[in-house]
């Protein structure tokens, strides 16, 4: 008897309800023992038709919906949409300087909190629960600050077309400065707790390597792209708002734990970006001028006919809003391009031949947020 033993691939489901996918994402895995042979991401479980809803609400009425596109960094989504509408209306230059600075401060604060969740969740998926709790404790302070500014903790709806809804409360700037001084120390502490931990580094290093060329081919954006060593940041390369007046660096991956573009590089880019955001906010706090916070905008907006695409750098990368206007009170077509989607599309490629447990590391390091993925 020489007939070989037949082995079959075992198809298993990971998700839709899985503790490490942080949202409703499903992966159909074909496994060969513990090794993934094929990984097929199944998106669409959180599809709420936000792009279609836009066609039936007013231009201002869509701003609260952008909060829900990516609830981990609602402020950045607000900013992206509002700046797109402003570009469509041709009123970019009318925005008061103070409003621009407020927008940058709040969106960078939100970037810190988003990265804190991303890093904390990645740690938690790897079995280190403590750093996640530390990060959530710090995020609570940011939530407090943003709540002070706009009255909500998660779905802010603070940035509006033409500026920001209301001026910052008097104590906001001093409290923010206080928080940054405190947080800078905490970041280093948490780094010592987890990021420099040899066991953690060994777990993340050399896993799911994305070479620079592959990152460009798959259209990765944001920290995932920079993790592969490509220095591209919309804030620097296509500056919007007041980013051209601010001095900050773009952290990129350098293969500090092993190969360039592995999970640890993507992770450390986020840690470095937190530090850069602190730097940006400090400069803004120094430079912020007094004055108006909102340009005069009619209560019924009817942008001229035409279309516009505007991109901003959100924590999950290059988020673009495409707007098509027929000169009516609501958009004729709206399309949102998000970073999570391209992050998801690269998973089948990099997840081939890795352990099932490493897929969790991949999802954690790519920082995929399910509602942004499906919109």
């Amino acid at each position: 008897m020489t007939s070989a033993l037949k082995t079959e691939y075992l198809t298993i489901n990971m998700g839709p309800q899985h503790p490490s996918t942080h949202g409703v994402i499903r992966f159909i895995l074909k496994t060969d023992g513990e090794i993934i042979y094929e990984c097929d991401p199944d998106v669409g479980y959180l599809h709420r038709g936000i792009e279609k809803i836009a066609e039936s609400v007013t231009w201002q009425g869509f701003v609260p919906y952008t909060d829900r596109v990516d609830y981990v960094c609602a402020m950045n989504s607000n900013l992206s949409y509002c700046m797109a509408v402003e570009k469509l209306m041709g009123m970019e230059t009318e925005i008061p300087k103070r409003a621009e600075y407020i927008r940058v401060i709040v969106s960078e604060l939100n970037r810190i909190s988003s990265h804190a969740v991303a890093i904390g969740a990645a740690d938690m998926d790897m079995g280190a629960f403590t750093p996640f709790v530390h990060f959530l404790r710090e995020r609570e302070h940011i939530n407090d600050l943003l709540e002070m500014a706009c009255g909500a903790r998660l779905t802010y709806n603070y940035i509006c077309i033409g500026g920001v809804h209301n001026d910052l409360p008097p104590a906001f700037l001093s409290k923010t400065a206080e928080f940054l001084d405190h947080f800078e120390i905490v970041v280093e502490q948490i780094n010592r707790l987890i990021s420099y931990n040899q066991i953690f580094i060994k777990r993340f290093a050399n896993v799911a390597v994305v070479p620079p060329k592959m990152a460009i081919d798959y259209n990765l954006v944001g920290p995932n792209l920079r993790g592969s060593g490509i220095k591209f940041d919309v804030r620097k390369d296509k500056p919007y708002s007041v980013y051209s007046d601010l001095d900050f660096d773009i952290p990129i991956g350098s293969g500090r734990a092993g190969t360039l573009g592995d999970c640890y590089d993507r992770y450390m880019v986020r840690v470095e970006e937190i530090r850069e955001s602190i730097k940006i906010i400090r400069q803004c706090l120094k430079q912020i001028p007094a004055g108006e916070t909102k340009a005069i905008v009619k209560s019924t907006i009817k942008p001229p006919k035409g279309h516009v695409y505007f991109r901003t750098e959100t924590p999950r990368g290059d988020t673009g809003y495409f707007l098509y206007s027929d000169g009516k009170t609501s958009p004729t077509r709206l399309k949102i391009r998000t970073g999570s989607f391209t992050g998801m599309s690269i998973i089948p490629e990099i997840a081939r031949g890795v352990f099932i447990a490493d897929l969790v590391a991949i999802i954690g390091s790519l920082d995929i947020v399910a509602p942004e993925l499906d919109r």
Partner: protein
Amino acid sequence: MGAYFQNIKDGFTTAFEGMSISFATMFVRKETVQYPEVDISSNATIAEKYKGSLMGMPENYRGILDVDLSLCTACQICQKACPIDCIVIDNIKCDKTKLSDGDGSPVLNRFTQKEALKTRTVTRFDINAAKCMYCGLCEKACPTSAIRHTNQFEMNRESQEELILRFVSDDVKATAEKRASEIEAEAAAKKAAKAKKAQEEKAKEKGAEE
């Protein structure tokens, strides 16, 4: 082989470094707010029982909506501003009145800075608190600040029906409708009188011509 033992050694030292930080956290002030026991409604009340550094609710917190009907001009701007149509307003004619505060000073329109005039009154002002997404667009659109967010956020009810806040009671609605029909009748009577007068004058003119 040396690298293997080096790894183990590094693993141990960095893990112990992490543990030292975890240990130090035991002596840091606790940040958790024991919510129902601690009153979080403002910075002053939270400080009574809570020793951490988190803040209480700010004054501009966006909680459940409240409407001050004495300031409402039934203009329906909030209804149009709401992206999810959770506000329903019906209105009818009423006596022309100038809105005034409690102390008698006139209420100004926030946008035009003119005195707010009330020519219609609401017979129905429903806000569906279950549907509302607390975005604050109605509050920002209201010219007289009649609709506003409160600090209230606890609202457990047994059914969805009870989550619809009805600000106009049936009695108020009935009196408003009665008054509206009276106004209509008065207006109709005035119109009829005017028409009659005009007819009489016409007839007079005709008579004079003849």
